[in-house]
């Protein structure tokens, strides 16, 4: 069996244009290898092809060319979905069912026995915090509650692989934290997670590796360290300079901010920071903090997307 949980090879999707409209390429030649146990965040602006990719992985769309394998099995077979949990973006769930009825139905689709279904439903209802609403009709649920129930159904088969489309959107701050905790719990259980997000902060917290997609093409992949750890953006120094003033630093005035008796300055590299620190100390000043500002995922994302 392949040690890759998810693999795509030259995956391509072209949407046929409606009458009089041109065909549209949603995804172009995607090659991905996601090892088992990895948390992979798929980032990109709206229309980049994130949801197209996820729908191709989960058999909702048929590829124009290329292939997808899940745990080494081609996803042309419905069996490939047996160990997969999927949460769609803004899930819509049958409003005429209760949360329990819906989870029971999903359990049946995985061929689970009634006893197992009951036990898992109890646990999942508790996990996603729907205990008080588990017997009311879903049509009365808020977006956040529906999202939680969507997460519960994705976990019904105790999957090895979770494919989540924008799992943290549409949630209030508490709901987002709860959902993030669930995802971190799954990460701790060594589940493979493939999730799309436009909230880069979430990706930074959760993901081991990141892929950036733009106009249907994968423009960069790598670990967070590889992508952001190489470059320092700036080094911030907070100090006080009692007598000679900021001129001793020999810096551009644009790089000096004063607040009370404290001065904030910044420089681009460690060597010049060293020189500034020496000047401050020689002039009888004090250094309160030296903070390296690393390049964030957001900086990287924006620089890649804007070219």
């Amino acid at each position: 069996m392949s040690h890759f949980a998810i693999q795509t090879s030259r995956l391509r999707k072209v949407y046929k244009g409606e009458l009089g409209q041109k065909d549209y390429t949603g995804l172009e030649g995607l090659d991905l290898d996601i090892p088992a146990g990895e948390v992979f965040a798929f980032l990109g602006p709206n229309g980049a092809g994130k949801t197209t990719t996820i729908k191709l992985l989960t058999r909702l769309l048929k590829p124009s060319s290329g292939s997808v394998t899940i745990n080494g099995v081609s996803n042309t077979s419905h069996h490939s979905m047996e160990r997969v949990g999927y949460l769609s973006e803004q899930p819509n769930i049958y409003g005429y069912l209760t949360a329990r009825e819906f989870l029971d139905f999903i359990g049946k689709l995985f061929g689970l026995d009634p006893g197992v279904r009951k036990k898992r439903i109890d646990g999942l209802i508790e996990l996603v915090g729907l205990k008080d609403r588990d017997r009311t009709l879903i049509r009365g649920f808020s977006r956040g509650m529906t999202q939680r129930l969507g997460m519960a159904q994705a976990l019904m088969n105790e999957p090895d692989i979770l494919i989540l489309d924008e799992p943290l959107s549409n949630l209030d701050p508490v709901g987002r934290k709860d959902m993030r905790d669930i995802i971190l719990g799954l990460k701790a259980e060594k589940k493979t997670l493939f999730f799309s997000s436009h909230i880069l902060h979430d990706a930074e917290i959760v993901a081991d590796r990141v892929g950036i997609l733009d106009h249907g093409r994968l423009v960069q992949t790598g670990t967070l360290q590889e992508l952001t750890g190489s470059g320092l953006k700036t080094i911030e120094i907070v100090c006080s300079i009692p007598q000679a003033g900021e001129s001793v630093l020999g810096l551009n005035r644009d790089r000096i901010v004063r607040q009370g008796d404290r001065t904030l300055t910044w420089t681009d590299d460690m060597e010049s920071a060293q020189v500034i620190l020496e000047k401050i100390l020689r002039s009888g000043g004090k250094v309160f903090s030296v903070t390296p500002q690393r390049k964030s995922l957001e900086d990287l994302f924006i620089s890649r997307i804007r070219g």
Partner: protein
Amino acid sequence: MKWPAIASLTYKETIRNRILINILLFAVALIGLSLVIGEWSLGEQAKVIKDFGLSAMSLFGLLIAIFIGIRLMVQELEQKTLYLVASKPVRRWEILFGKFAGLSMTLLLNVILMLLALWAVDWVIEKRIDFQLAAAVVLIYVEILLIVAFALFFSSLMSPTLAAVATLAVFIAGHLSPILRDYVQLRPGTGLKGLYMAIYYVIPNLENLNLKMAVVEHLERPPHAVEMGILYGVLYLSFVLIATCMIFEKKDLK
């Protein structure tokens, strides 16, 4: 096999559908109204009631088949509720067949309720139950299932409105198709004979499923009319369902 779970869900969905309940109540009320209409006929009260009742069943069955049949898939696709089902280890045909089977169960319940209403009305007039009505109702049920299959077929290809029009057209053409056959038999020298007969064989002959007149008028029925009707209807709807499954199998759930 996952389709029974989908069938059970569909049954639950349709049985909780207000449109369906309203159509059913209206149909039962109309069958009850046949008592009044029967009053206007001279000495033919029972016949009029049975004729009216069976026609009402056929018409309301058709309405339910078109409205619920088309909504069934279109709603799932538009509201994207199908995503969480189609991404599970389930074959596409099982989803479609499960939907069909679930709606068939609901329609069976409806037809039984309408038949009970008709028998109750008949009891008021004749003080007996005409079990022959059941033979006509069985074929009405098969006809409704065939219409549901067409509704699913068309809704997998076109917009809901067009699908409703196309399904209704099949119903009307299906009842008129024997005219084509009779025309060709009466005028064997006609130039378009091949075309007429091709249309006749492609369009289902729904008159094969129509025993209303024979039952109401107590006419002699062709031998094994019910059995042959069931066989014809089931074979035909199987072809339509297989074609729909093939389309659905390749469909992108955007």
